[in-house]
């Protein structure tokens, strides 16, 4: 966990630098009629840099003294997490192409089959019914435009 601590602190430090650079560009002094646009972000970025630097240094010191500490992810935990994370990203990417409801259909079917090992009958039933129900509720009833994707509009005629 210490390594993750150092890593995250470093990442946040980088974010702090990103904010700092832009706030310098915007100007962080007193402008014509008040603080310039970069004033607030400048102080924020300084804050982030100081805090994350101290967090990182503390973590490095602790790591040196006590070693890596507990595991970040418990035994056997990484696989289920990746099984959620990667297909979710896949679903989002797929949404760009075929729209969210069809992507969800694929996502549901994939997860149910690959992880849940559920029988084909149930898989087909659920992965068609649920997106259909949500499509009716959100797109038709509440009239919220949800992503159709590049080809999705043609795949669903209604």
């Amino acid at each position, binding site marked *: 966990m210490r390594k993750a601590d150092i890593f995250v602190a470093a990442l946040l430090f980088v974010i702090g630098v990103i904010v700092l650079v832009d706030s310098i560009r915007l100007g962080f002094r007193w402008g014509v009629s008040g603080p310039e646009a970069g004033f607030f972000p400048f102080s924020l970025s300084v804050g982030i840099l100081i805090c994350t630097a101290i967090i990182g240094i503390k973590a490095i010191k602790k790591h040196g003294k006590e070693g890596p500490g507990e595991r970040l992810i418990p035994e056997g*935990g990484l696989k289920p997490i990746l099984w959620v994370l990667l297909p979710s990203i896949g679903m989002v990417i797929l949404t760009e192409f075929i729209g969210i409801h069809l992507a969800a259909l694929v996502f549901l079917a994939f997860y149910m089959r690959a992880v849940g090992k559920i029988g084909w009958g149930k898989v087909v039933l659920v992965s068609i019914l649920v997106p259909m129900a949500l499509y009716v509720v959100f797109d038709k009833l509440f009239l919220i435009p949800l992503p159709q994707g590049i080809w999705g509009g043609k795949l669903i005629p209604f």
Partner: protein
Amino acid sequence: MENVHNLLMGLGVALQPHNFLVAMIGLVLGVIVGVLPGLGGANGVAILIPLTVTMAPIPGIILLSSIYWGALYGGSITSILFNIPGEPWSVATTFDGYPMAKKGQAGKALVLSFLSHGAGAILGVVMLSFFAPIIAEFALKFGPAEIFSVMLLTFSAFVGLGGKSALKTLASIFLGFSLAAVGMDIVTGQLRMTYGSVDLMGGFNFIVAVIGLFGLGEIFLTVEEGLKMEGIKARVRIRDITEGFKELGRFYKTLIFGALIGCWMGLKPGGATPASFMAYGFAKQAAANKEEFGHGASAGIIAPEAAAHGAGTSATLPMITLGIPGSPTMAVIMGGLMIFGLTPGPMLFVEHPDFVWGLIGSCWVGNIIGLIIVLAFTPVFVAVLKVRFSILMPAIVYICAIGAYAVNNRMIDLYYMVGFGVVGYLFKKLDYPIAPMVLALVLGDMAESAMRQALIIGQGSPLVFFRPPIALPIMIAAIVIFFWPTITSLRKKYAARTTIGPG
């Protein structure tokens, strides 16, 4: 008293058939959301905000807040029956609720939990009804410096009293404010931190962040332990209810104390989660039968539950009077208010009294009816969890995605959602508090504009924030609270030294 008259008017609004129906739907959805992992109170409300855009403000806010009340009740169901907290504020309930259920007294545990929730809710709503107008009156005198100082007080409370590493809390807060600043600056029209990216011009929306942080993040946390939803069967019988009342009578001190802690924690932002832990800790320390805690002690259920619900309801108070949400879920609800074009704060009482009192009225109605609903229909809600997790999980992610997209109709928000999910998971594991980051994201623009206006008024001098009579004591309180851990540890050292002294 004018306030009683207002309250009755509010109750009248809340009990109008349309609003009442909306509250019922919200409550049921809320309990379901509370029961499911990954769809939490903050998250569930966030997803439904785009839906409420089609509704008028009053029923819209009633829906959103009813979901919160329902989720407060619902989180306990899985804690007691499955040893899996359905909500972050139900974690403390697992300590004694589940053991009690294992001993065969699941019905009793559920009843104690729900009744304690109800008690906390009543105290919270009573406080809300009576103090809201007073504080709103007071807050009308607030200028930008005062507004900013109250926000500083809020965040200082997180740092000084949050119980987590001050550095990490600060980092979380700064990060939240930075995220809020990305995009176009309202005052100067300049683009900040966008580095030429069109996507970043729109900035980060707090709804998307909440759905990612609390939704996906929660799912990652649930999955990493490979949870199985094996639950204890339970029905709530009439006998359980009468026994529950009797037990509550025995432990009335714990109940009142828990509810008070809850209301206090709801006022200064922190919310239901820290309130529940604090109450549990206090109850255990004060108890005569400490060893029973962790094995099914009644007080171990009563205290955190009363606190959690008290905090949840009283979180409404600073939100509507000062525009400072008392809990992450309340922050989301406040965001919903702003989307309706209503700015929470003292002006709301002046300009839209029917709205404010209608909301307060529905707090009464919602929490009391919610109690009845969970007492009567627990097995129904439990049945929701019988659905196989491998069906539930992708469905939850799917619903989250819909919610995230519906905010601004941007695909990039879906990617942000996943990103925030990872952040939420990492932050939870590494003990970075998420609530202050969410609050900073919601309040970011308001805080910055208040600061800028104040500085302009003060001609660039930061002393403007310390001007009496209002800003000065608030700033002093903020500084004291900020350094509270240092103060307490210095006091301990001093005490130790004097006792070790000669003699």
